[in-house]
């Protein structure tokens, strides 16, 4: 159980470490924790991946079903992204409708995929104006070890890369062979930094998040452009800090992307 006194001690301890240029788990400030991704773990889903980013553990599942397009984009497939901060994942998460953190996480993940044009939505049209493929991205957070944003982004991209369109199940395919893969055009990767006093660290743990000021997430694409940014938290950032984080994000996402493409 959490205890206010314990928390204060924990904070003091982490601050003390910071001053000595150290983190509690021995990482460098710009180092990610170990990452373990497994794909195709849910047979019932059209695509899926679990990720362990340090102690953070979540599953992204992709379901695809035919449905109606939005009126203003009658020829485009639809993406619906949802994240569940399950009460099993942390003592502070509660059952119930998604709270603002969950809404923010889902919307940023969604923007990363949408704005990077990761999925070719035009190819998901079945009958223009009437029927398109609906991509449901559902992320279930099972253990909050911190930095859910990057973990969710990585798992989602990993799952999308393996996702197949269930043409046969819905008798909507043109060929009689295997279901074709989702048309992926880009690989967006989120990199999140946080400020601790004047230090910037990447991939914060949940303990670090508790004492951190503000997080800045940069989602970068294969060609190094940026497709989404989100500042989250009540401390301000200076332009210099932002510039610094952008540079770190560029480097880090490149590393993660390489790791990914090997998956």
């Amino acid at each position, binding site marked *: 159980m959490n205890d206010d006194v314990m928390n204060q001690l924990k904070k003091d301890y982490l601050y003390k470490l910071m001053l000595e240029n150290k983190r509690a788990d021995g990482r460098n400030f710009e180092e990610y924790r170990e990452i373990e991704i497994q794909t195709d773990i849910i047979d019932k*889903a059209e695509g899926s991946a679990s990720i362990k980013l340090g102690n953070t*553990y979540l599953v992204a599942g*992709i379901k695809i079903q035919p449905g109606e397009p939005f009126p203003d984009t009658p020829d485009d497939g639809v993406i619906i992204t949802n994240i569940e901060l399950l*009460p*099993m994942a942390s003592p502070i998460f509660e059952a119930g409708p998604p709270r603002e953190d969950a809404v923010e996480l889902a919307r940023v993940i969604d923007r990363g995929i949408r704005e990077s044009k990761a999925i070719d939505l035009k190819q998901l049209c079945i009958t223009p104006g009437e029927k398109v493929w609906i991509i449901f991205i559902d992320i*279930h957070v099972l253990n909050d070890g911190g930095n859910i944003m990057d973990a969710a982004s990585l798992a989602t991209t990993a799952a999308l890369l393996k996702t197949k369109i269930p043409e046969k199940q819905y008798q909507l395919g043109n060929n009689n062979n295997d279901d074709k893969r989702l048309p992926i055009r880009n690989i967006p990767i989120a990199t999140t930094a946080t400020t601790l006093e004047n230090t910037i660290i990447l991939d914060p743990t949940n303990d670090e998040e508790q004492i951190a000021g503000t997080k800045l997430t940069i989602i970068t694409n294969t060609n190094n452009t940026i497709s989404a940014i989100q500042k989250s938290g009540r401390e301000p950032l200076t332009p210099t800090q932002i510039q610094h984080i952008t540079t770190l994000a560029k480097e880090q996402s490149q590393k993660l992307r390489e790791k990914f493409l090997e998956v």
Partner: protein
Amino acid sequence: MTKPESFITNGIRIDGRKPEEIRPITIEVGVLDRADGSCYIEHGLNKVLAAVYGPREVHPRHMQKPTTAIVRFRYNMASFSVEERKRPGPDRRSVEVSKVSREALEPVIFTEYFPKSSIDVFVEVLQADAGTRTVGINAASVALADAGIPMRGLVSACAVGKVDGELVLDLMKEEDNYGEADMPLAMTQTGEITLLQMDGNLTPEEFEKAIEMAQEGCKRIYEIQRNALIERYKRDIETEEEPLETPEEEPVEVETVVENEAEEETSEEVESE
């Protein structure tokens, strides 16, 4: 999914099992680090995670009981766990499953030790393939033990069904969808029944036999639950023997996969009874 022509051919079910054989079960204990106790079970194609928090303070306060802990149980299916995407959040089915699962576990918990507290059990179905409520209870029971909640013993759950007019243990999806009856049951180590539901069609004689079969299934599952906890306990002892490698503040959770073939063999022994 279409209805198979027959469910049992020469005494063998469509997934190769004998009528009284349970599906393969794999149990991992202590898989989550935030929860006080946790357990991951793969049971056939079911993939289910359970986590326990508590005893902890009750929110909202008015739910507190002055002389006992309250037990809360939330059964939840992931949106992607089933064929047709499930809308997030509780539906009527999950409300009922949560209620009967809670009642299946409460009898073995020493709630009287923790007045004004809550013991919160969360079950997440990542993949569903018939029998998720029994798998959830099995996982929750182990997670409660992992959380160190004082208990009279474990609870084990298993379903019996009827296909082609014959009683079979532990229905898989096709058997559940097209079968003639489904009867989940949960049992304490001492043989007391803490969950019992049935739907379908059974004669009183079949019902009597079904109870016996389910009890045998629960006993098999109990052994697997017990071994998973022993395995976990062994690991803790081994860990203590090498104290230098573990950081003192945050003990690393080494995951244990209890997949030992011994159990699978034993469960086949049961089938041939």
